[in-house]
């Protein structure tokens, strides 16, 4: 029976009704658990919801139990089934009902892994389909009510109207750049430039931030572009003129009178153009001459400037020298000057002596500071390296994490699949074990049957032997009875003996039958005892009393109200 219990518990756990892991057989079930098990089974079979817990009130309990019992009966359960089976559970009955219910559980739908379409186009078509389905299933809403013409749904959004969408046109936006070190520009950014959100209309901010279609690259040559544009327009104009000329000529053919005039005019024009050409060339030559002359002039001006500078320098020198000569003419001044020079040299020497004294400690300090600086720099470098290393490691770890997460998911899926197959294998193993047990029991039964058959044979043999020995004795004594008186008496006694023995045998058989009946009756008594009718009766009477109490209370309440 344990096997059966295990199977029942396993399938109940599969149904997700809360059964503790500690429970190992149906003996540990109480009324609450039986109700939850039965109602979850019924839910799975009938696809309607049932309460999974017994309510506290007795009458409600009874109601629930009777509805459950009726449902089970409706499913075709043959056997004793009423509210008592669920409320006052008896292991045997519970086992039978649960087995019945589990047999009727719908088979799990075979989960087929939908093969994901990987292509770009099928995915788009699928999302399109889903979107259309969504928008068809939702009630229509006027677009003036919607914000930005789009409705949010549980899995994305439905576009209703893009009438309010602004075309992708950008504005030049000023963003302060802290990399540029220019005080004036900084002042401009701090005091003048407004926030980006105030520099353009709200609908244009995002495009202006993301795309810079009106920002020229740095090596952009504006003049070049304008020149190109000029050439293009000139060419188009010329081509236009070329087209118009033949038409004019055609017109002229119609007016022959004017032809001569036009010819003379044309001659004049050619002459004039020739003159113009000549003059142009002359003009060009003159311009070149002017250019050379101008260059010459410039050079001359430059040389003149240089010479003037020289002259000024020389004049200043001459002035200084004359002053010095006037000073040096007096001897007192000379002596004073000599004195001053001597003092200055003395002072210089003294300073030179003092200098190394001052220089030495400063130099040392400088050297030490330099060394510390270099050491700190190296430290800094090392730390930088470390940080970079750590960053790299982190990136690697994150990649690893991603891969492992995916692996985990895959493995989990595999595990689930494996579990399913495992349970199947377990079931088959159990079934095989059960079949083996049954075979063994069959063998036992056959052995017992053989034994009984042998015993029956023996009994038959014995009765046959008894009969034969009687008849033999009967014949022998009957033969003698003709001649002897004693033999006649003995024959009578023998007949009496035979009757008596037959009686004994009969009583023996009767005894056997009675014993069998006795055993049967005992079994029946046991069965009746197992049903606990007394206790059940007590329970039912107590239930009845409780219900009566509840109804009384309810009646009182209703009276009061």
């Amino acid at each position, binding site marked *: 029976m344990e096997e059966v219990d295990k199977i029942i518990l396993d399938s109940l756990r599969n149904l997700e009704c809360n059964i503790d892991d500690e429970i190992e057989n149906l003996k540990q079930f109480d009324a609450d658990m039986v109700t939850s098990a039965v109602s979850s089974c019924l839910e799975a079979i009938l696809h309607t919801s049932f309460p999974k817990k017994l309510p506290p009130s007795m009458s409600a309990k009874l109601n629930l139990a009777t509805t459950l019992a009726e449902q089970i009966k409706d499913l075709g359960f043959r056997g004793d089934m009423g509210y008592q089976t669920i409320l006052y559970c008896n292991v045997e009955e519970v086992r039978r009902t649960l087995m019945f219910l589990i047999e009727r559980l719908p088979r799990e739908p075979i989960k087929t892994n939908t093969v994901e379409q990987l292509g770009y186009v099928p995915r788009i078509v699928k999302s399109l389909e889903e979107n259309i389905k969504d928008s068809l299933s939702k009630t229509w809403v006027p677009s003036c009510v919607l914000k930005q013409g789009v409705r949010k749904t549980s899995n994305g959004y439905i576009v209703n109207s*893009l009438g309010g969408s602004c075309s992708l046109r950008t504005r030049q936006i000023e963003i302060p750049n802290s990399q540029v070190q220019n005080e004036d520009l900084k002042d401009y950014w701090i005091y003048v430039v407004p926030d980006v959100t105030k520099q353009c209309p709200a609908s244009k901010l995002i495009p202006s931030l993301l795309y810079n279609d009106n920002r020229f690259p740095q090596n952009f040559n504006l003049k070049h572009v304008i020149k190109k544009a000029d050439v293009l327009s000139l060419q188009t104009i010329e081509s236009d003129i070329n087209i118009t000329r033949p038409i004019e000529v055609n017109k002229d053919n119609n007016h022959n009178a004017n032809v001569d005039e036009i010819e003379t005019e044309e001659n004049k024009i050619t002459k004039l153009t020739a003159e113009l050409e000549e003059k142009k060339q002359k003009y060009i030559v003159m311009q070149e001459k002017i250019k050379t002359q101008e260059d010459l002039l410039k050079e001359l001006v430059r040389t003149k400037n240089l010479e003037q500078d020289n002259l000024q320098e020389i004049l200043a020198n001459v002035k200084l020298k004359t002053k010095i000569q006037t000073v040096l003419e007096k001897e007192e001044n000379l002596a004073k000057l000599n004195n001053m020079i001597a003092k200055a040299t003395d002072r210089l020497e003294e300073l030179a002596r003092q200098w190394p004294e001052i220089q030495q400690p400063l130099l040392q300090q400088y050297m030490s500071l330099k060394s510390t600086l270099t050491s700190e720099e190296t430290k800094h470098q090392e730390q930088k390296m470390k940080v970079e290393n750590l960053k790299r490691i982190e990136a690697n770890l994150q990649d690893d994490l991603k891969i492992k997460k995916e692996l985990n998911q895959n493995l989990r899926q595999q595990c689930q699949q494996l579990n399913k197959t495992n349970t199947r294998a377990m079931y088959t193993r159990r079934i095989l074990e059960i079949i083996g047990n049954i075979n063994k029991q069959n063998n036992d039964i056959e052995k017992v049957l053989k034994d009984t058959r042998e015993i029956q044979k023996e009994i038959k043999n014995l009765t046959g032997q008894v009969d034969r020995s009687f008849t033999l004795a009967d014949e022998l004594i009957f033969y003698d009875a003709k001649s002897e008186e004693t033999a006649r008496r003995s024959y009578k006694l023998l007949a009496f003996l035979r009757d008596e023995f037959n009686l004994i045998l009969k009583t023996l058989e009767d005894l056997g039958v009675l014993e069998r009946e006795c055993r049967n009756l005992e079994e029946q008594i046991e069965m009746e005892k197992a049903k606990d009718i007394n206790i059940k009766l007590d329970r039912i009477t107590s239930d009845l009393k409780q219900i009566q109490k509840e109804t009384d209370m309810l009646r009182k309440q209703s009276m009061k109200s």
Partner: protein
Amino acid sequence: MNILDEYKSRISRNIPLIADDTFKKLLENCFSYLTDKKEVHNTTDLYNSKPDVTKEVYAAFLAVTAEFVRSNLSNDEVAKYLQDCGLARNRIDLYLQQFVKERLSVEIALLNIGNTLPHITDVKWKIDYIVKSSEMDSADGPLFRICFVAEEFSETDGKALRNIHFTCNSVELLDLIYKLKDAVRHCSNLTHRLF
């Protein structure tokens, strides 16, 4: 040059100069402006002593957020980018929290950029019959004067209504109706599982 690369250095240079409180308010402003075109806090209150830095960071976050949604980056990738920009963990969390909440709205805001055909919301019509005019003696049949009321973007006041007028005869009108029915049938074919 990629927008994200361009703003990475800008953010990393300026983010240490911004206080936590200001950062939070800037973020709230940024998301509400991207989705609702409104600013929750007054930006001039957020300047403190460095208006230029605040302005730059604000612009950078507006641009970067729009770019995240535009290129459909996952939350992890966004977190990684912000980490590379030198944001502290709590700031990244703050950003992600808002980003996850507002992502769909920003996507819708991006959706609303571009040229689209006017969206027809209503139709007005009348049937004319010309009995006689200076140009002709008799008419072929009724004339249908139809006016579609359509929503369209206008520079001055956002979404505006525009009337699209046209006139057609009964054959042309039937043609139009068949075209419309065709479109409906095509849609229902696409979702044939529904019907």
